Each structure stands twice: as structure tokens, then as C-alpha cells.
């Protein structure tokens, strides 16, 4: 078993102007990843960019795994230009994972934009049980929506511009869903997306007394707990996103 390995690019498919689906083949020695875990990916020759980049497990495949990524800066731009056969230096699976809900709970899964990358495999594992709140800026950015529909019990779509589903954020959609419900503990929330969205989830979690797990993001150097770079403030002091996270309880974060 080794969490330091080399992966080969099988496919690096543009699924949108700024998003790619990367299919990798990985050595058998890599431990099985679980939903919510992530990988550090090195894509450089030379020393700039220097650090590896963090990407969530999107989906496990027969030969390895997939990553869904948005082109954002230097590193992802280089990644986008890499071709089949190219070799990536990787670490993982890293961090903790989404705890599965107990039988009697209905999992509400919220994804904002590229946040879908982190919760997709959770939705898969929940095999028809999850009610998914999937928000994006526009209809076009609702990536992999058809695949999500295959595994979800129900998908409630929202877009900032109203081009698909409700007009508003996934948090708005979640609130609209929760408002008419009895505010007891039948539900359990899993969320990944931009910070304000997670913060809104945390507020609802408190208000409706629903346990919520959020996947946090911070700039990372090592990904394995050594540098102390990736901390977020919790009521119990700073915690490392790469080690105590990325999945944290919404109630423990100081928002």
C-alpha cells in the first residue's frame, strides 16, 4: 500500500469551456479512496508551479479514478494541456471522508459548482437515497448532471441566472426544501461548494438542528498534515483541512 504513486492519464476530456474530466490509471498498491477524500497532484516539470494541487476523488473506475477539475490558474492550465499517456506524480487518498448516514436518515447532498466533484461518489454510494441540491452559475456549468440523476433519489437544480431549475443558489434551494418540513432530525446534510454556501448550510444546520458535514478548502502545501498550512478555525482551535478534514462538522467551524 502506498499513498505516493504515479498515475497515467487515460483521458483528459473537456466537459465545459473551463472544466475537464480526468481519467487516471493508478497502481494496485493505492489504497481504495472513499467519498470526500482527495489527492495531491503534481503536474509540473521544473519547479514552477512548485506545489501539488488538491483534487477530490470524483469517481472510482475499474482501472483507477476520475478527477473533475476547473481550470483556475497556472497548475490547472498545465493539467488541461496534458495528453493521454502523460504521468502525474500523486499522493492519496488523503484526509477523512463523508460519514455515511444511519439507515433512518435521508441524506441531503448539496453541491455548489465544482463542489459536485467532492460529493459525486458519495451520491453514488448512497445508491438512490440522496436528495441532491445542485447549484451552478449557469445551466452549462451544471456538469455531469445526467450522471448525478442516475444515482440520486431526486435532484433539485438551481442556477444563479435561472437558466435551469430554481433561480438562486443551492442554499436557497435547500432552504426552500427545508422550510415546510418538520424541523426534526430526519435529515442529514453533506455539502461542498464555495465558502458562503457552506456558511449558509451551517446556519440552516443550526436553525433546523440537522447535522451537516461540509467539505472545506484551504491552500495546501503538503496534504499530509505536516506543514500546518491548511488550517481552518474551529471551536476547538485550528484544525488541518488535509488531516482532520476536508470533511468537518458544520457546527465545529468558526464561520
Amino acid at each position: 500500500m502506498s499513498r505516493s504513486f504515479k498515475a497515467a492519464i487515460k483521458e483528459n476530456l473537456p466537459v465545459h469551456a473551463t472544466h475537464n474530466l480526468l481519467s487516471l490509471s493508478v497502481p494496485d498498491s493505492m489504497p481504495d479512496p472513499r467519498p470526500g477524500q482527495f489527492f495531491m497532484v503534481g503536474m509540473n516539470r521544473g519547479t514552477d508551479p512548485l506545489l501539488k494541487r488538491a483534487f477530490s476523488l470524483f469517481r472510482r473506475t475499474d482501472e483507477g479514478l476520475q478527477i473533475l477539475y476547473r481550470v483556475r490558474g497556472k497548475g490547472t492550465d498545465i493539467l488541461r494541456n496534458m495528453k493521454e499517456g502523460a504521468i502525474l506524480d500523486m499522493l492519496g487518498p488523503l484526509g477523512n471522508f463523508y460519514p455515511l448516514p444511519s439507515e433512518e436518515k435521508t441524506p441531503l447532498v448539496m453541491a455548489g459548482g465544482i463542489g459536485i466533484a467532492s460529493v459525486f461518489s458519495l451520491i453514488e454510494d448512497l445508491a438512490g437515497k440522496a436528495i441532491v441540491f445542485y447549484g451552478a452559475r449557469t445551466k452549462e456549468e451544471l456538469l455531469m448532471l445526467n450522471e448525478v440523476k442516475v444515482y440520486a433519489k431526486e435532484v433539485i437544480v438551481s442556477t444563479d441566472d435561472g437558466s435551469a431549475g430554481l433561480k438562486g443558489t443551492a442554499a436557497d434551494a435547500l432552504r426552500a426544501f427545508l422550510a415546510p418540513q418538520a424541523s426534526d432530525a430526519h435529515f442529514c446534510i453533506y455539502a461542498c461548494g464555495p465558502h458562503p454556501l457552506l456558511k449558509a448550510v451551517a446556519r440552516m444546520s443550526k436553525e433546523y438542528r440537522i447535522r451537516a458535514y461540509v467539505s472545506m478548502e484551504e491552500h495546501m502545501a503538503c496534504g499530509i498534515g505536516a506543514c500546518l498550512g491548511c488550517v481552518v478555525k474551529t471551536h476547538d482551535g485550528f484544525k488541518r483541512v488535509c488531516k482532520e478534514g476536508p470533511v468537518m462538522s458544520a457546527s465545529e467551524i468558526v464561520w
Partner: protein
Amino acid sequence: MDLSVKIGDLELKNPVMTASGTFGYGEEYAEFFDLSRLGAVVVKGLSIAPKEGNPPPRIVETASGMLNAIGLQNIGIERFIHEKMPFLRTYDTKVIVNFFGDSIGEYVAAAERLSGVDGVHGLEMNISCPNKQADWCIFGTDPRVTSEVVGKVREATRLPLIVKLSPNVTDISVIARAAVDAGADALSVINTLTGMAIDIRTRKPKLANRTGGLSGPAIKPVAIRMVYEVYKAVKVPIIGMGGIMTAEDALEFLMAGATAVAVGTANFIHPTAAADILGGIGAFLTQEGINDIRSLRGTAHAS
């Protein structure tokens, strides 16, 4: 092939150590290679009282480097001794504890507490910290302050004492001499360069702490130059560090005058970096027909 080196009275089986703050307390790396292969493990900087550190963001990538403003977060010496030392003692390597204080008193207290702890083989004193008593000057940027704090720590411990120098100075050889005259057994060269990055969208510094320490390959030329200068100024062993990514980089430091090297930021990029570098040094010696690594030391000073 003899790879062993001496740092004061401390015998290392080879010259490759880890740089403080880049290797946690060793645990995080144990799954990637056998820590017993290392010449020494240098742990994250510790203080008498635990420290919470700075708010995030604490890390910014820069061209061939990174800025960090961890803010010396640590669990405190007491917890370290009880929670981390038992693990470290299971390895056949030297454990060097990096420490710091906000005042001379804290430095002395830390050194005293660490001395005599089973399995602590040496101390590395980080003097790149602000001196809260003296109007926030940095201990390691003034030779008189350096001399005072090192002298007091020297009286407090009989462990091999390594003083880690700040590169943010006009003349590092002056500080080096002050530290050695005050009793340092060895010097670590260099700590991070102070730097800053600004987010042009928010128009704010990218780090919550505003400034941070620059490390990584970007600073290697400065580090090599400083090791070269310190080698000319003092006779004690130098631990060279700053941007070491490969065995070739490590060899440059040895030729500049270092007795040992510490691998820092590279650990983040390749968790096996220190072991790989050790392997590469061995391969180089074989290839060049060198039996004793010490014969490389300072060779760039010839002619």
C-alpha cells in the same frame, strides 16, 4: 563508503536531515520511508507554552517557492515530550528539537526542559523570531542580541547546540561569529527570507499575517551564498538548507561548506525527498569514486 558526519559531538550516520517545520514530528512521513535512514529528524519548532499560530491563509505559492506564515503553531514542549517522543525514540536516527521563545527567559526555559529528555540528541535554536521584550526586534538580526540569547541558552544545556540563522541580514558572517563566540556548536543556514504577496482582486496581502517566510528552490542561490560566507567566517559545522530538491542541490551545499544538509519544502512536494536525496548523494559518490563524504566539504572554496 563513509557518509557519517559530526555536528559538534553529535555523530550522524549520514548528512541528510529534515528542516524544522517541514516534517511535522516525523509521524506524517513514516508511511513513506523508514525514518531510520535519515541522519537526523529535526522537528517542528517548539516553545514552552503551546502556540495557536496565525489565522489562515497561511500558505501562498510563489515562483519556484512558497510563503508560509504558520506563526510557529506548536503543541508545546510538554505535550511533545509525552506524545511525540515515544514514537521518535523507536527510530534509529538522531532527534534534534527546534525551539524558540518570545524572550530570553523562554529560550532558556525551553532549552532546560528539553535537556535530559531521553532520545533528544540535539537542540536547534530558531533565532528568527521577534523579541517581545525588546520592541519586537528579531533576535537573530542583531549580533549583540544573538550573542546574549545564545550565551544564556548555552549555559542552560549541555546538548549539542545548533543556532539557526536568519538570512534577512546585511552580513550573515557577523551574526554567525556572534553565535559561535557565544557557544553555538553548529549553525543552520538559512531560515526563510521574509516576503509578501498581494491579491490584486482584493488588494490585500494574500497571507492573513501579511508577510511570510519564503522557502523553496527560489531561495537556493541566496542560501548557497550564505553558507559559503559563513564557512569562511567560522570553524563550526554548518547545516545547509534552502531550496534543496535534489541530491545535486545538496551537494552544492556541501561544496559551499556545509557539513550536513536539511531538506525542507521538498518534503511537501515529494514525501520521499529526503530519502531520495540521500540515495542520490550515495550514487554521486560512487560515480565520482569518493569514499568519504567529508572530502567534499567546502571544495568550492579552493583556488
